[in-house]
């Protein structure tokens, strides 16, 4: 393992967290990329499932502080996504760019599913529209960001394939 790798990962996590609170509101798009999910997945593929779950809980609780009405829903979703991603990394996180995109897409979509179900705010029809239309769009954008981060962050074989 390259000794500088943890620092590079930490750098990209900081960049993604900052992007979530600067670039995302600055763009103000209806369909938004979730930079925090990408950051969590970066942690998840490099750490044990326990560490990923704790990171998910921390990130989720932090973002839940902005929506106190649903406090805990984001933490639950992030915990499950972090743990699941770290658990499944051997199967999914290969050097294949397309599989990485699917990995990020599935992570974001799974987050939305757990979050929306846990917050219990939307009725069945609206929930369906959100999960079938808006969430996949957002997950697609998030996957694009994730691929960009993987390419730029210097995963050599990924860069070569890109």
């Amino acid at each position: 393992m390259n000794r500088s790798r943890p620092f590079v990962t930490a750098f990209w996590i900081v960049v993604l967290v900052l992007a979530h609170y600067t670039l995302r509101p600055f763009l103000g798009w209806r369909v938004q990329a979730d930079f925090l999910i990408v950051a969590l997945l970066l942690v998840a593929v490099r750490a044990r499932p326990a560490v990923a779950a704790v990171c998910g809980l921390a990130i989720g609780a932090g973002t839940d502080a902005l929506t106190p009405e649903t406090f805990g829903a984001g933490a639950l979703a992030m915990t499950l996504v972090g743990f699941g991603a770290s658990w499944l990394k051997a199967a999914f996180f290969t050097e294949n760019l397309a599989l990485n995109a699917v990995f990020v897409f599935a992570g974001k979509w799974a987050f939305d599913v757990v979050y929306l179900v846990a917050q219990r705010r939307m009725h069945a029809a609206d929930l369906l529209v959100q999960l079938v239309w808006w969430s996949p769009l957002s997950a697609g954008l998030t996957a694009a960001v994730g691929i960009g981060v993987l390419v730029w962050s210097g995963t050599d074989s990924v860069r070569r394939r890109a």
Partner: protein
Amino acid sequence: MARVTRTDPRLDLAAAATCVVAALVCLALPATTRDAVAGALRSSLMAPLLRLQERAELGRRTLRGHDVAAQVADSVALRALRLTGIEQENAHLRGLLGLGAALRWGFVPAEALGGRGVGDDPTMLISVGRREGIEPLSPVVTPDGLLGVVDRVDANLSTVILWQHPDFRVSAMSTNGDAYGMVQAHGGSGANRFFLEMRGVLLRAQLKPGDVIVTSGLGGVYPRGIPVGTVVSELRTPDQWARSYLVRPAVPLSEAGSVLVLSRERADAGVPNVWASAVGADSAARRVVAAIDSIARLTGDSNTVRQRRAPMDTARARAGVPGRRGP
């Protein structure tokens, strides 16, 4: 890609289960404890990030404002002002300036901070708090009318309950004072959740589609005369003693960008003649139309009947009140 070898899967499962239980406990916390925890996070760990977000939101609006200003300065670009989005933003900013000038004192301008962006969120964070003198139960308004009420206040931020929130209630009345009722979120699914409903209106006080509903001033939270919405239709309810009406909100949630928070003193002093121009024009137009209708009925002049909406539409257009739907 380097990966850490799993040494003890049971340890991972135990840690993950603990995290899940912690998240579920957060979900089940009582409101006061939950608010305290969320408030502590907002004012400590999340504070720098929220400041960044506020700057980014301001930057986005400034960029839009700059675009509008450049287009105004450039006569060639005047045609671009007809673009709906820019016109709406321009009108909103002008309206906010106009509202601030009409209020004169007792308000704090604030920026709305976007949430997670997943699904509907009936609450909103705004960029002012205790340091700016914000108190719980302060009304939050825009040039179009009432948006919500401050629920929780931190040092630099406040949480606002929007009209879509299930706990939102406001005592309201028709502009002529004939009908009083309680306005709350209509709820339901689909487009229904973007409407309000006015309950408890006496049977003898009948409202018509297009009637403007304003706050009544009863209850001591909202001053009298802030537009709440426009009557769309009467709702069929099992109530035998009162009527309920579907109300189109005066402030669409999508336009909740820049807002004003009324201070307690301003709310107590009232807001006479601040929103009165739009509401008054609407009432005047109605009286004119009613008079023309009466004359037309007496004289049997069908042309007058057909053209009776013209003065109303003109008055609405001048006052900036949206036109009524239907035939």
